[in-house]
């Protein structure tokens, strides 16, 4: 090949590569703007009216200018009009008048934030958060917050990910990384180097909580004590537990024998140790929330290119019945009664 032909071939590659890229970006942007323009506007309601009665706070995933903002619907009318606030969160939770909002401001420098907001949605406390937000929970009395985030570089083999879970006493100075707690397994204190914690749920006593620990490729349900800085394994293959309002049952996701990256929901009676699979047959990667004493709710992303939008479903916690759509275009639900 003569130098001239080489140069022409190279210019052709550059033109194709740059032109194709720009063409794709322009087309995609036009398509996105089109989708926003033609999106069925979600019915809006006033926040005051909804907040007066029992309601569900969630992350709005309806495409458009309000995507990602915190919204709420009345429990009596979950697929009805929603009130959208001005606050943007990736993960949101509400208890005792406080809102915990985890947020990744993605850009050249991605900053991660965990803010505690009051009833007027003004920031009252900023909690530490390292990495992409994953789970958020408040204790029932609103005094403690638990955050889980994915941390890059927090690992013993290069390029891996791991999680960091921190329990904070919001009004005090305690910012407790669960990795500093004592871990007891089969009656023995252990400290596997590859252990990771995620998905905290609090009991009503202001001390007890449940969470997930993993090491050596397996996951376990742990019962923890904030005061004693102690964690004890209870049950194998259980992630992101959620404690029922009466404290008798946890519902969690388990891998079972399914393919990697898929989970089924199961409930564990903490008194009897009996595990029951719930009626949801799809994979669920969420920490469920209790709608009432008998039902749990959780988000499921839509498939393929519509995955930015997710819907919240409800299923009985005792394994009976069938899942049902509760709130369309919603994620990270928190029930406020």
């Amino acid at each position, binding site marked *: 090949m003569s130098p001239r032909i080489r140069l022409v071939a*190279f210019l052709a590659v550059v033109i194709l590569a740059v032109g194709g*890229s720009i063409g*794709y970006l322009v087309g995609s942007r036009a398509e996105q703007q089109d989708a926003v323009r033609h999106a069925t506007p979600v019915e809006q309601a006033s926040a005051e009216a909804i907040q007066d009665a029992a309601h569900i706070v969630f992350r709005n995933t309806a495409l458009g200018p309000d995507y990602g903002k915190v919204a709420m619907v009345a429990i009596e009318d979950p697929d009805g009009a929603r009130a959208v606030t001005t606050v943007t969160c990736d993960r949101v939770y509400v208890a005792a008048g406080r809102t915990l909002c985890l947020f990744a401001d993605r850009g050249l420098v*991605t900053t991660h934030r965990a803010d505690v907001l009051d009833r007027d949605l003004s920031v009252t406390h900023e909690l530490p958060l390292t990495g992409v937000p994953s789970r958020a929970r408040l204790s029932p009395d609103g005094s403690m917050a638990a955050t889980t985030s994915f941390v890059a570089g927090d690992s013993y083999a*290069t*390029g891996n990910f791991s999680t960091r879970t921190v329990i904070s006493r919001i009004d005090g100075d305690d910012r407790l990384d669960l990795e500093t707690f004592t871990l007891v397994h089969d009656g023995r204190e252990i400290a596997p*180097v590859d252990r990771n914690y995620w998905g905290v749920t609090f009991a009503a006593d202001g001390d007890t909580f449940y969470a997930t620990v993993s090491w050596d490729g397996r996951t376990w349900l742990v019962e923890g004590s904030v005061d004693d800085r102690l964690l004890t394994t209870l049950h194998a293959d259980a992630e992101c537990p959620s404690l029922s309002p009466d404290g008798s049952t946890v519902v969690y996701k388990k891998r079972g024998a399914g393919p990697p*990256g898929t989970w089924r929901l199961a409930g564990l009676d903490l008194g009897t140790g009996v595990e029951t699979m719930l009626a949801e047959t799809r994979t669920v990667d969420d920490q469920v929330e209790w709608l009432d004493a008998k039902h749990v709710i959780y988000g499921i*992303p839509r498939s393929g290119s519509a995955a930015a939008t997710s819907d919240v479903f409800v299923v009985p916690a005792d394994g009976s019945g069938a899942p049902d759509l509760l709130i369309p275009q919603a994620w990270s639900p928190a029930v406020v009664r």
Partner: protein
Amino acid sequence: MNDGCSGEHVYLTDRSRAEGGAGKVSARGVTRTVVLLGLVSLFTDISSEAVSAVLPIYLTVVLGLTPLAYGFIDGIYQGVSALVRILGGWLADRGDHPKWIAVLGYGVSALTRLALIPSQSMAAITGVITADRLGKGIRTAPRDALIAASSAPEAMGRSFGVHRALDTTGAMIGPLLAFTILMVVPEDYTAVFVVSFAAAAIGLAILLLFVPDLRPRRDAVAARPAAAAGVAPPKPSLRLLADRRFAKLVAAAGLLGILTIGDGFLYLVLQQRDELATAYFPLLYVGTSFAYLVLAVPLGALADRVGRATVFLGGHLALLAAYACAGGPVGGAIPTILCLLFLGTYYAATDGVLAALAARVVQTPVRASGIATTQTAVAVARFVSSVGFGLMWTMLGQRPAMVIVGVALIAALPLAWVLLRGVEAGPSEEAVVE
């Protein structure tokens, strides 16, 4: 003889022959081919780092996967990549066409960008990422052999410095490009993959169209004095690789590699001490890369002047300084920034310099294999180190673990110096024609 070369100056002959018609040696001793290979790496790194920057978010937010599962598998394939690297080096030596092995490696990685677009499951993404790792493993040694083959021995350090600086520039542009794309078309990760493929294609085109098909072994033999002409080029063999000086080099690099705390750990130490480091976590990488980028060429040139082994060992002093800044009692912006700069200095003084050193120590017919072996020894040593350091961190605490590794590194440096003494005398080319 070839190209009118007398054969008296073996290296000059080697170089001008290697360059063929493809390039001139610039005033500062870096050839066009080296710059072209740097540009290939620049575009390929734009491509791969753009994907790496968005992959965690893509996996968790869009595909709903748990990165933990991904990370677990990722660890396993690191080992595969190390083995493939040696294979890539061996194939390059064996066929004496390092360019074509490099094309294979870069080509595989470019194709994985396209394959990412339809991949919606854990298994598919794992497969695609594995293919990318294999491509990276295959191409590294032949590419470094090409850099060595197109550099004058006295400018080898600078050549590798220029290449690594361009490579790091690409690694810094990649994430910026990715996040710019996501600002233009929010949530459209396919757009990042499309642009990433385009960048990889440009890099591959530069390699295919402009980088000459160098024949390091044939040219080394052709450059022999007339007395040796007509002797068949020796096939690369383990015997050629099993050289005492080369063994010393690998031992020294491995020894120091075991006492290297991974960046991930250093960043973690900084984060645990400092709110600042936590808030600007992504900038830690940028700080290190910046120092690497700025210092790669000057330190490579310094290595050519004062000796590559000296600069290689000196780089580990910078690493010690980085440990001191990270593990010391004083927190705040200045020690954190100093730590990142020292870490970047360490990379600038060791990564390309080690490749230059290996390229000089082994004989030309096994040069790619030699470079691959050295790099793999360092990679394996660092992996052992990260597991060991993780254990010590858990059992003894962070500060004692750092002190132990730091003291061990101080003790190991004189030993490494003894091992590296005289290693750099240049390959005994006569052995080639024996």
